[in-house]
């Protein structure tokens, strides 16, 4: 031994990032990649190189699911277990991997080669069941494929070798080389229209920043992440805010289960997104932009870096962009590390600063004090693509599509029980029925609009429209056929929230667990009518008292399904004739004591007289 390899690796990586505390994410990711974990010694070393306390580093590492303090296998297989993948056969795939590897979920093989884990939505619902093998995405899995993947990896542990056929479009690009399919079913007139590279920026820098903001306002562009805040107004706040420098961030932490539009957008239209970010930078007076890319999309990173390089070479990034003296702007990519809550803008900012992805208290809003306490704009990937198109073709063209309150088009990520899952660009204001016809779902029993935190609507609501006035959404549409069980779907959504709750506030941390417990009680046939009321009360409490948007929407799956599908729940619950709690199972409760005593309970036949 003699020397300390952990210390040397950490030193090297810390120096690479200038020993800056706010680069902790990159440092921790680097250490994880090199050592397979950020163990106790690495935590100590990072803390001392950055001059921060040990607990700060440890708290950071334990927050993110792609970082670990325990050693992982050289090959980490992460199975996506969102509801759509479960419907597509997640369980068989899991069993396939478990049998082939001889371990269960959450374990590492004794030789230290493989770790098998579950993970939240990978953004591959249109081609599930899917998994990540290190950074490599594998799709359309089955138990047979699981076995052959393990066999192939045993022969050659390089996951890249698993990709034998490339997906469509840029997925076949030499820097992507992925089997992911775009499944772009409908390219619309705005986001997926023909690109005119550089045109939007040239037009933007030819006018004053205030005029750029005016153009975006005239187009009535609203945030595409789901909340629908007017983009122009956000920019104006940041532009007018005191403090410098200013920052613009593109939120590519597409973690809402069932959403995958940004994946396709970044694969096929990265220039349009980067152009939008550059224009945002020009409008608010920023010289640095960040693309926060979720860890699950790491397979796109080299490609995106290449696009950025090309833009630098073409004068679309860098100094005096497009000849505009004094407009200097560049973009860096910040990788995430697997945390849904980082899609919330203040959590995302914390994450960019190398902190736990916990949402901040607002005010101050990011436009006043955001990244590194400077005025910051955070925009969705799709919003920025719209910005580029608005500058290219003018606000009037943009407003030709959609409705007066919701102008333009919307990207929908459609998955589940339908013939043609994939990404669709449609005019705002389309009805749910229109969506279902478009994707070939003739007998949908229910549709989840807006992912896990969205709302479920039934056939009676299929004439409702997708826009900011009615069903406002980031674009996730999950279709459920007539054989699906609503409480099962809700239970899957609750698994997700239990997992992703950051744990800061009690209503969300504890409440999500209680909701899950009650739902599962009903699923197991042990529910009572009072449970439904209790679910509603609890859900409302969580909604009103949680600290951030995650908690405030975590009860949505429960509340909206009880509201819209009450009969389903009513049919599943009943009173006990004796006034016993149906949720209490005596046989189950004494099982451990029976084992210890080595005899059966004398009460094992419950007295029911």
């Amino acid at each position, binding site marked *: 031994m003699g020397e300390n390899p952990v210390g040397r690796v950490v030193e090297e990586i810390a120096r690479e990032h200038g020993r800056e505390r706010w680069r902790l994410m990159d440092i921790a990711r680097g250490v994880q990649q090199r050592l397979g974990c950020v163990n106790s010694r690495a935590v100590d070393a990072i803390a001392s190189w950055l001059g921060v306390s040990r607990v700060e580093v440890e708290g950071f590492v334990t927050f993110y699911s792609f970082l670990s303090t325990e050693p992982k296998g050289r090959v980490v297989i992460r199975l996506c277990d969102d509801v759509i993948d479960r419907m597509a056969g997640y369980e068989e795939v899991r069993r396939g991997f478990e049998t082939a590897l001889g371990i269960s979920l959450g374990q590492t093989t004794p030789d230290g080669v493989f770790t098998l884990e579950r993970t939240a939505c990978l953004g591959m619902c249109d081609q599930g069941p899917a998994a990540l093998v290190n950074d490599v995405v594998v799709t359309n899995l089955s138990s047979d494929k699981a076995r052959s993947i393990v066999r192939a990896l045993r022969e050659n542990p390089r996951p890249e070798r698993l990709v034998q056929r490339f997906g469509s479009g840029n997925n076949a690009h030499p820097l992507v080389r992925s089997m992911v399919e775009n499944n772009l079913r409908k390219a619309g007139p705005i986001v997926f229209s023909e690109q005119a590279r550089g045109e939007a920026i040239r037009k933007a820098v030819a006018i004053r920043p205030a005029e750029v903001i005016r153009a975006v306002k005239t187009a009535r562009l609203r945030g595409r992440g789901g909340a629908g805040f007017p983009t122009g107004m956000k920019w104006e706040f940041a532009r007018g805010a005191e403090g410098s420098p200013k920052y613009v961030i593109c939120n590519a932490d597409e973690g809402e289960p069932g959403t995958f539009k940004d994946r396709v957008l970044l694969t096929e239209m990265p220039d349009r997104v980067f152009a939008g970010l550059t224009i945002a930078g020009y409008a608010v007076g920023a010289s640095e932009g960040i693309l926060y890319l979720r860890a699950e999309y790491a397979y796109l990173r080299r490609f995106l870096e290449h696009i950025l390089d090309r833009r630098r070479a073409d004068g679309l990034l860098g100094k005096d962009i497009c000849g505009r003296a004094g407009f200097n702007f560049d973009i860096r990519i910040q990788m995430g590390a697997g945390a849904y809550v980082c899609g919330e803008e203040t959590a995302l900012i914390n994450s960019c600063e190398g902190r736990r992805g916990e949402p901040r208290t607002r005010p101050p809003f990011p436009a006043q004090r955001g990244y590194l306490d400077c005025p910051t704009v955070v925009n969705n990937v799709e919003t920025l693509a719209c910005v580029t198109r608005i500058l290219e073709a003018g606000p009037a063209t943009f407003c030709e599509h959609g409705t007066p309150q919701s102008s333009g088009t919307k990207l929908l990520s459609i998955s589940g029980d339908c013939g043609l899952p994939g990404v669709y660009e449609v005019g705002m204001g389309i009805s749910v029925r229109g969506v279902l016809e478009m994707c070939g779902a003739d007998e949908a029993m229910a549709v989840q609009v807006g992912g896990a935190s969205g709302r479920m609507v039934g056939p009676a609501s299929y004439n409702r429209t997708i826009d900011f006035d009615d069903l406002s959404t980031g674009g996730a549409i999950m279709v459920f056929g007539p054989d699906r069980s609503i409480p099962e779907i809700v239970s899957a959504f609750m698994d997700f929230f239990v997992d992703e709750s950051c744990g800061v506030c009690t209503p969300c941390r504890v409440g999500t667990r209680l909701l899950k417990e009650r739902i599962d009680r009903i699923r197991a046939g042990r529910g009572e009518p009072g449970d439904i009321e209790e679910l509603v009360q609890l859900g409302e409490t969580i909604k009103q008292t949680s600290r951030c948007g995650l908690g405030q929407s975590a009860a949505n799956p429960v509340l909206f399904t009880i509201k819209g599908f009450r009969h389903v729940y009513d049919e599943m619950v009943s009173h006990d004739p004796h*006034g*016993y709690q149906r949720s*209490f199972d005596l046989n*189950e*409760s004494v099982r451990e*004591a029976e084992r*210890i*005593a080595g005899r059966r309970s*004398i009460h094992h036949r419950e*007295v029911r007289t």
Partner: protein
Amino acid sequence: MSKPRLATCSLAGCFGCHMSILDIDERMLELAEVIQFHKSPITDIKTFTERCRIGLVEGGCANEENVEVLRAFRRNCDILVSVGDCATMGGIPALRNFVEIEECLREAYVDGPSTHNPDGVIPRDIELPLLLDKVRPAHEVVHMDYSLPGCPPSADTIWAAVTALLSESPVNLPYPLVKYD
């Protein structure tokens, strides 16, 4: 018309709540005027033979026998009241919920510093009720109608609650009766 009957039991509790019941002192005579005590440690009546109006439950459920008794109370009483913190929330016995039961039993019968048990036997006689995996408050096992907080609830609190239930007037306990600090 016969007098309404009242039953009481102590499950996983310390009998402190029953002491508090006895603490109503001379009012016990007043109570005996209007009710008849049925199954209770106070009367030593072991089984229900008649239906009762009120059942007072002390303690939560720590073992299978507690469950059987509580269920018998639910079947035979119109109104069930959780009396005291153990019945309401599990109380002190529920502290063991954070420890595996095998570890609890070993600590009690084998590993405890004052234990002499050379064979390391954990008692398993058929007479001994098996422990539940967790100590549960009464309302997690059967439906409870009311709960009286306190460790124990004061005699005045118990008196106020029982008389209100008997007169079928709303149970409305003034703040001093349910305030503990």
